[in-house]
């Protein structure tokens, strides 16, 4: 019973025409009765296929996805593409601050390391921090949002007060303050970003939870004896997930920008090469006044491309789930 309803609901919430296909599938399967589990799996596959068909029609979303796949592959293959010792400052292959050439397509930094190789290695940090911080942010936001939307009374009020309060705090200032008081490490950066950005997600999820909880099937579930945990996990969460997915994608791009900012301020892990850290190194090496554009331009472009790719994907997902938004294709 419950597996069936959880699988069908996300699709039903996003597309009302789902009823037809379900009915057609039921009549088709009358010949050989399928187990509820198999039916649920088939429905899940169907709704994924439908999602992909809708997503495919958003051209900018496809560009974003293609860029992400490419960058993820580059990040995974960093040791092969750039060499494992590309980040070492001893025995560097080139002289300091060389102009772009055949050997070093993007020139070298002040230690003589290849900027291109550093850029490839930096992709790992950016993607890791972006993904993990977004997951942390969305996890906190989803829990707070669902709990605040499900329960009435004073602790819902308190939760939303706390959320509101985090919402008015200047995010970057709070993240910088947190990163300052903790040790310099990649986990600090992830924590600082995740802990400061969740309120938007919490508000969004709470609104969706309230909408879901007003539907009749929640009342039915409650009448059949479904407890708080059952309703929140089996009914509300699956219906909130699509929204959360879109939100995660959008949060990743801002997390990547914040990571670059923190690293630029010298609050990142100094032992790891990241794009923001490269910009800080470049600034400290006097690349700005010397006009060393080949050292400064690539990390920023890389940050912008990744952030833009995630934004495009997020907007495409959002407009698939909510066609009323009118996002351009």
């Amino acid at each position, binding site marked *: 019973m419950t597996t069936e309803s959880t699988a069908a609901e996300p699709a039903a919430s996003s597309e009302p025409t789902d009823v037809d296909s379900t009915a057609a599938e039921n009549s088709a399967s009358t010949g050989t009765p399928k187990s509820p589990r198999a039916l649920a799996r088939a429905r899940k596959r169907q709704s994924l296929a439908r999602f992909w068909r809708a997503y495919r029609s958003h051209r900018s979303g496809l560009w974003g996805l293609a860029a992400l796949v490419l960058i993820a592959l580059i990040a995974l293959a960093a040791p092969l593409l750039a060499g494992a010792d590309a980040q070492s400052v001893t025995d560097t292959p080139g002289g300091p601050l060389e102009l772009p050439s055949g050997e070093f397509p993007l020139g070298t930094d002040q230690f003589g390391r290849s900027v291109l190789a550093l850029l490839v290695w930096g992709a790992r940090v950016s993607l890791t921090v972006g993904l993990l911080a977004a997951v942390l942010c969305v996890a906190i936001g989803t829990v707070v949002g669902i709990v605040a939307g499900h329960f009435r009374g004073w602790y819902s009020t308190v939760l939303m007060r706390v959320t509101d309060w985090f919402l008015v*705090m200047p995010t970057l200032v709070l993240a910088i303050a947190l990163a300052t008081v903790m040790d310099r490490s990649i986990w600090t950066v992830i924590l600082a970003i995740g802990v400061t950005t969740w309120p938007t997600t919490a*508000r969004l999820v709470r609104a969706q939870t309230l909408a879901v909880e007003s539907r009749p099937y929640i009342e039915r579930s409650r009448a059949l004896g479904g407890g708080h945990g059952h309703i929140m996990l089996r009914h509300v969460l699956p219906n909130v997930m699509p929204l959360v997915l879109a939100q995660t994608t*959008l949060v990743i791009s801002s997390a990547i920008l914040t990571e670059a900012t923190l690293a630029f*301020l010298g609050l990142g892990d100094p032992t790891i090469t990241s794009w923001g850290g490269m910009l800080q190194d470049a600034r400290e090496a006097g690349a700005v006044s*010397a006009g060393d554009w080949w050292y400064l331009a690539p990390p920023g472009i890389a940050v*912008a491309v990744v952030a*833009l790719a995630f934004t495009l994907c997020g907007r495409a997902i959002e407009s698939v789930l909510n066609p009323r938004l*009118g996002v*351009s294709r």
Partner: protein
Amino acid sequence: MTAESTPALVQSADTDGGPAQPGPPAARGPRARNTRAYLRYTAGKIAGAVVSLFAVLVTSFFLFRLIPSDPVKQMTGGRPVSAEQLESLRRQFGLDLPLWQQFTDYVGDALTGDFGMSYQFHSPVIGKIAEAVPATLLLTGTAYALYTALGIWLGTRTAWRNGSRSDRFHTAFALTLYSVPSFWLGLLLIIVFSVGLGPIPGLFPTGGLESGGETGFAYVIDVAHHLVLPVITLVAVGYAQTLLVMRSSLLDEMGSDYLTTARAKGLRDDLVRRRHAVPNAMLPTFTLMFVNLGHVVAGQILVETVFSWPGLGGLFYQALSVPDLPLVQGLFFVFATAVILANTLADLLYPLLDPRVGR
């Protein structure tokens, strides 16, 4: 991502704190009832703001007590100092008292505008902050006015011609600039237009507010000259948000019946847009404008740092690098207060613009 935060904020304006249930029936008719409902709504919002301000005070105190290193050691900068000297420094900055007493002293002082002495400059924090405020207001205020106007104008244009080539171009361009780190754009502008790249000579100063030695009209020109690059950076990174919010809320209105009615009356297309569609679509943008207004004071830490602008953001960066505890605390409080005040102002004005709120 910010386009998503705005509806949430709008929602906060109409669900929280405001009296959802109508007040008791008043004898003097609906007008008196409305006034009373508005007063109650106002009182609730102001009370909420006061609670938030106190929470900020508490956070700014305890957050920076987490710093593991001894501030006195930081102050002396590793020079050999005797134990007595350290002790007297501690006493001078009140660091020898128990934590709760430091806290009550801190709250009491903060309420009178006293945030203590800066470790770094050995002068009152509030003085350093007051010195930096005008520069920040000049820079971010100018940028704020420009990017809000640009965002609203372009947002309206793109939504009205939804799907056209110019819509696609402007949306893509704005999204791209939105993904660019502001400090990087600033550095790049410095390289190209201040240092000079290839055939381009150095047109603008690399940073600061003034060259010094100018007076009168020449001084104004000089400051304006210094303003150009940081303002361009802030506008480029900032206008996308307003554009996207304006665009999506206008698109929401596009199919409305009242627009068809307005057209049927024979109104010209741009009059339909100016008098009917845009005023209705302005509400979410209005919320965003106030959120951004709070951040005008918070300044742009990165852009001010990159352009060595003598404002609050640059001061925050300097304070962090020491770390100069009282100065960081004071600035944190000022930044958060500005955002809270701007949001409260938006909450109070909102019912006047949208009668559905706060009734």
